[in-house]
């Protein structure tokens, strides 16, 4: 089979896929009887991408709406006419190089976007209320009852009450609900004192209002709500994206497979594929399910599942796994497991298990709150009882002092101490190409004592590079022949040759698993495995890397090329600096023992594990965690995904597959590894700033509480002092901006 014929088969396959594409089965009708389709588009990175994808769909004149959500990758198409054009849309978008998957509308029903709206709405209402109440308060503050008149004052109080009471009931709900939930579970959190302060301050103000009194503090209560909601919203946004991982994984399982049914090709959703069916997989396509090869020979890129860089040769009877990539030839696969039972599905389950494990983590701020709450509450109660019984005050006045104590100790600084530093920290890291995906990532990262590293693509570049060759003269010939193949080693050879002229080979054929054959200048040349090439050169048996051979059929021209997956340029330095910081380093890889040993020797890691399957990696991590270690996992493959999810904290390079990036808490860009240590430095810096903020808040409380307790402070001054302490905390947090990445 020549290349031309090969190309034909591939394009045939494309057409078959287009005809049989099952997307039209996903089209729904809306109330106006128009067609609605949701797609998940991957690979969208910039404004140009948005425009390209949308205008490709708009080319069809029947389309009413094509809107791509940049954040989630969801493309929403609404059109008139026949639902059959759905597959054309998909084909057009795919042909521009974007990935398309069906979007599962059920996964969209997440609580997150609901919660996001809820917080924003509360924040908006509180902002409106505080603006209007301050307008009135300003007048009240700069005058007295004598100059203003009691009637005017109580009118303004009433207006403030009409705005404030519904606002606190409405916008205070995030705190009330959370406090109720905690109390119901017999816990306490920061929201308990917040709720109590809000309710008491409002209640006391209503009481004073009805008495035509002076101590009406709706402004303090609403300001408190507004400030706290800002902190809450920032915190929520920082934490949100982490949750998307599992949803995205299910997307991968929700594609289509081409089955052969009585000689006919049929596209059906992967979840409907059953044992015993025959699935046709074209070259360049991922295997949709686990199975054995029924017919044909091909090479399979298993790097997604095992982390190995070199493709395996598979022929009839060999097992293939869902998620791995069919490289060289179209084949037929006999399905042995349905989609729910595949290796990929196992990984999904491991990840879900890992995600549940993460829920038990108690964040520092919550820990502080459990200590703080009882202290504050008992203090306010003591103040009330003290002034009532020992100070012989009227109960209203004693209550006012108790409310002042509650407001002045309100954990505003505590509530801002963490989110402000985190927002600044993630902003700083983002400028350096590090993306934090979960809000508590930095907090967890600062506590690690062990680092697990994957090999391929993490410590190493992830692509084979030419390290040694026997004969430089044959390079041009060999590279010219290699340029006709998509095999990773062939492409590495072409890359190594650089941009020089390529010779024009004819009659080229590729035998999957063996190599290439082609004719140049009347002579037949072969490139590939030792047994395939008629070469007199001895077989290279040492473990320096993978070797491919090149020879003419008469054996006069011959060469061999050794490829290795090289270390990233700063890998050794980064590992050394980790070890200097007192971190234990451990290499875990799915690759061969010899290769892992070679790499670990180069970066000076003594603790390494080779030929690890995903579940073995997972077990290793679980054991380390049981042993009391806090583990950072750095990895980039699908086989690392469960470990990335289960580790206390995880990082993935930007070159990692989507799934690993989604499972990781932190994604970093760039070719090197120095970002890992930089992020670690920033994490430790943020933690120390957060602790400083706690100390600042504590000092402020120590000064302010005695005054409040003695009754020298009104609730209004208390609200001002509270805001002042929050400002100090925010200013202190800004010192984080001065952290630099010394290594880049």
């Amino acid at each position, binding site marked *: 089979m020549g290349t031309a014929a090969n190309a034909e088969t591939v394009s045939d396959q494309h057409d078959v896929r287009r005809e049989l594409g099952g997307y039209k089965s996903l089209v729904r009708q809306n109330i106006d009887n128009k067609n609605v389709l949701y797609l998940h588009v991957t690979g969208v990175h910039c404004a140009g991408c*948005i425009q390209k994808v949308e205008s490709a769909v708009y080319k069809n004149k029947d389309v*009413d709406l094509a809107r791509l959500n940049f954040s989630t990758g969801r493309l929403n198409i609404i059109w008139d006419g026949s639902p059959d054009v759905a597959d054309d849309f998909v084909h057009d978008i795919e042909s521009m190089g974007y990935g398309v998957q069906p979007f599962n509308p059920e996964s969209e029903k997440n609580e997150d976007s609901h919660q996001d709206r809820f917080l924003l*709405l509360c924040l908006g209402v509180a902002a409106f209320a505080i603006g209007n109440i301050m*307008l009135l308060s300003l007048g009240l503050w700069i005058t007295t009852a004598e100059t203003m008149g009691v009637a005017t004052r109580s009118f303004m109080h009433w207006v403030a009450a009409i705005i404030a009471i519904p606002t606190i009931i409405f916008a205070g709900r995030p705190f009330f609900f959370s406090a109720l939930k905690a109390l119901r579970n017999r816990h306490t959190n920061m929201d308990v004192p917040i709720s109590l302060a809000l309710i008491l301050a409002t209640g006391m103000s209503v009481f004073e209002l009805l008495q035509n009194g002076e101590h009406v503090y709706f402004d303090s209560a609403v300001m408190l709500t507004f400030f706290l909601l800002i902190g809450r919203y920032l915190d929520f946004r920082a934490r949100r994206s982490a949750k998307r991982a599992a949803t995205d994984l299910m997307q991968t399982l929700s594609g289509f497979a081409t089955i052969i049914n009585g000689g006919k090709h049929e596209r059906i959703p992967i979840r409907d594929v059953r044992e015993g069916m025959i699935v046709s997989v074209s070259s360049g396509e991922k295997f949709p399910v686990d199975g054995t090869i029924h017919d044909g020979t091909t090479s399979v890129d298993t790097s997604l599942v095992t982390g190995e860089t070199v493709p395996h040769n598979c022929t009839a009877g060999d097992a293939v796994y869902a998620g791995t990539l069919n490289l060289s030839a179209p084949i037929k696969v006999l399905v042995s497991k349905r989609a729910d039972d595949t290796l990929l599905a196992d990984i999904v389950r491991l990840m879900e298990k890992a995600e549940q494990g993460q829920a038990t983590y108690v964040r520092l701020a919550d820990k502080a709150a459990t200590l703080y709450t009882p202290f504050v509450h008992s203090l306010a109660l003591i103040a009330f009882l003290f002034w009532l019984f020992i100070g012989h005050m009227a109960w209203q006045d004693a209550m006012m002092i108790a409310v002042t104590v509650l407001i002045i100790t309100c954990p505003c600084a505590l509530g801002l101490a963490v989110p402000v530093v985190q927002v600044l920290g993630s902003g700083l890291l983002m400028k350096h190409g590090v993306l934090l995906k979960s809000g508590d990532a930095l907090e967890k990262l600062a506590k690690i004592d062990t680092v697990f590293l994957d090999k391929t693509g993490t410590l190493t570049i992830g692509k084979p590079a030419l390290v040694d060759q026997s004969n430089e003269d044959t390079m041009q010939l060999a590279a010219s022949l290699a340029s006709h193949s998509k095999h990773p080693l062939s492409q590495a050879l072409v890359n190594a040759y650089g941009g020089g002229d390529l010779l024009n080979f004819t009659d080229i054929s590729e035998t999957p698993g063996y190599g290439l054959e082609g004719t140049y200048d009347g002579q037949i040349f072969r490139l590939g495995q030792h047994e395939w090439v008629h070469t007199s050169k001895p077989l290279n048996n040492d473990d320096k890397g993978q070797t491919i051979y090149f020879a003419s059929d008469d054996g006069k021209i011959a060469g061999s090329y050794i490829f290795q997956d090289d270390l990233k340029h700063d890998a050794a330095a980064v590992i050394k600096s980790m070890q200097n910081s007192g971190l234990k380093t451990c290499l875990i890889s799915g690759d061969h023992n010899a290769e892992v040993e070679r790499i670990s020797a180069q970066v000076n890691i003594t603790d390494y594990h080779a030929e690890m399957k995903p579940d073995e990696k997972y077990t290793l991590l679980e054991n380390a965690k049981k042993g009391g270690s806090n583990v950072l996992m750095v990895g980039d493959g699908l086989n690392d995904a469960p470990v990335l999810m289960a580790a206390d904290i995880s990082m993935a390079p930007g070159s990692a597959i989507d799934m690993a990036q989604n499972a990781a808490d932190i994604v970093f860009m760039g070719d090197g590894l120095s970002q890992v240590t930089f992020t670690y430095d920033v994490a430790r810096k943020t933690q120390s700033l957060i602790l400083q903020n706690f100390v600042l808040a504590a000092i402020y409380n120590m000064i302010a509480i005695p005054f409040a307790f003695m009754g020298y402070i009104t609730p209004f001054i208390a609200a001002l002092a509270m805001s002042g302490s929050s400002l100090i905390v925010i200013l202190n947090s800004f010192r984080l901006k001065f952290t630099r990445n010394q290594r880049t």
Partner: protein
Amino acid sequence: MNILMYLIPIAVLLGLIGLVAFIWTLKSNQYEDLDGAAHRILLDDDEDDLK
């Protein structure tokens, strides 16, 4: 002080208009895709949006 009887309701009303506008932006999903909005501003032709 009678002027306050007019001015305060007017001030509150203006604030309410702002709040209603905010709730409208929230209900019409304008905060769903903030990153996308940041990118879309760079696009030249708006004819797709005018449809």
